[in-house]
């Protein structure tokens, strides 16, 4: 998931083709309760982008919404 600069009137979430993984499969076993969240914060031409990955999507979304007001971009399953 990512969140970008605020866009007044934009939808609360946007579905995107792809978001890079920040968590590798061999880390799953080290976090059996799924409490791992990883963030990558970048300065882009249009503002600040926060990219996140987590084993619990709701936790990540809460973090992203707390740190930036823009729409959350997320991938879908399937």
């Amino acid at each position, binding site marked *: 998931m990512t969140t970008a600069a605020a866009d007044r009137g934009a939808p609360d979430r946007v579905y995107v083709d792809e978001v890079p993984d920040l968590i590798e499969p061999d880390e*799953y076993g080290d976090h059996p309760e799924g409490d791992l969240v990883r963030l990558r914060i970048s300065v882009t031409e249009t503002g600040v982008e926060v990219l996140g990955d987590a084993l619990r999507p709701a936790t990540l979304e809460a973090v992203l919404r707390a740190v930036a007001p823009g729409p959350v971009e997320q991938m*879908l*399953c399937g």
Partner: protein
Amino acid sequence: MTTAADQRTGPRWQPGVLGVPGAGGKVTCLLCPHACVLAEGQVGACGVRRNRGGVLETSTHAVTVVHLTNIERKPFYHVRPGSRVLTIAGPGCTFRCRYCINYSLSQYGQDDEVPWRAQAADPAEIVRRAVEEDAGIGMSYTEPGLAIELAVDIARLAEPAGVKLLWKSNGFLTRKAVKHIAGHLHAVNIDVKAADEEAHQRLTGAGLAPVLRAIELLRDAGVWVEVSTPLVPGTASEPGQLARIASTLAAIDPAMPWHLVRFTPEYRMRDCAPTAPRLLEEGRRIGFTAGLRYVYVERALGEQGRATCCPACGTTVVARGVWSTHSVLLDDEGHCPGCAHPIPGRWK
């Protein structure tokens, strides 16, 4: 992508198929086995089909997303490895799975907190883009069966252009629905989420038997079928469930690919833990023990979990990365290069 204006517009209804008029202006919807009997103005259990003036109508000639993704993401492992799929999704689902990662789309009409996010579909534009990208067209993320009218409209334009139609479905379809769509489908990945009716009903709000029947009917009609099972706590991850699912699938066809999918805590099951890798490893062993020849885990077990190996000589015939294909050693007819054993699939 949808805009805020599109969301305000709301659903557009148009006539749907598989509606049977009855007494008193009622209509029975025979798309899914819920077989809702709808009085005037009533909306079905799915939330996207209704009776208006004695005519069954659908709001699913619509798309929320149009994404270009690798075919391995659907997942399909025995269908044109390394190809891409232009994936579309309308709103709604015939299931109400408590763990659904895509609930913000799939549960439209069943969950009052999920808004309308779709816009009218343009089949010609979807096919044009698929041709341009040399991609198949996938209907996924939500239940494609609910958009059967859109699927047929797309297929009629796609088939002359050589573009294949693929579904990721829950398989909860009536015989009539399968008959209506099977001739247009190239391949389907169907979820089998539980081993018995009680567990399946508890998780999805729907029965298991119609899902298993749809698998057989689609296969009989010549559609390529792969199966996915998410290891949901309280359902497929419980002791004995996977072995029974694997036996059921092996009895249908031991060469039918089976994908084991990691559970992610989401929607109404956020209090559970994600699937441990050892359970996926154990599930893979259970599948092979039951006689299934192609059992896959997409990420958690590394390349070995994603590889297609010849069941006769053990040669790795398709090697995959995460959501991608590294190499295909099969010939055009799907024979192993080591021993010429046929590996079933739609490889071209």
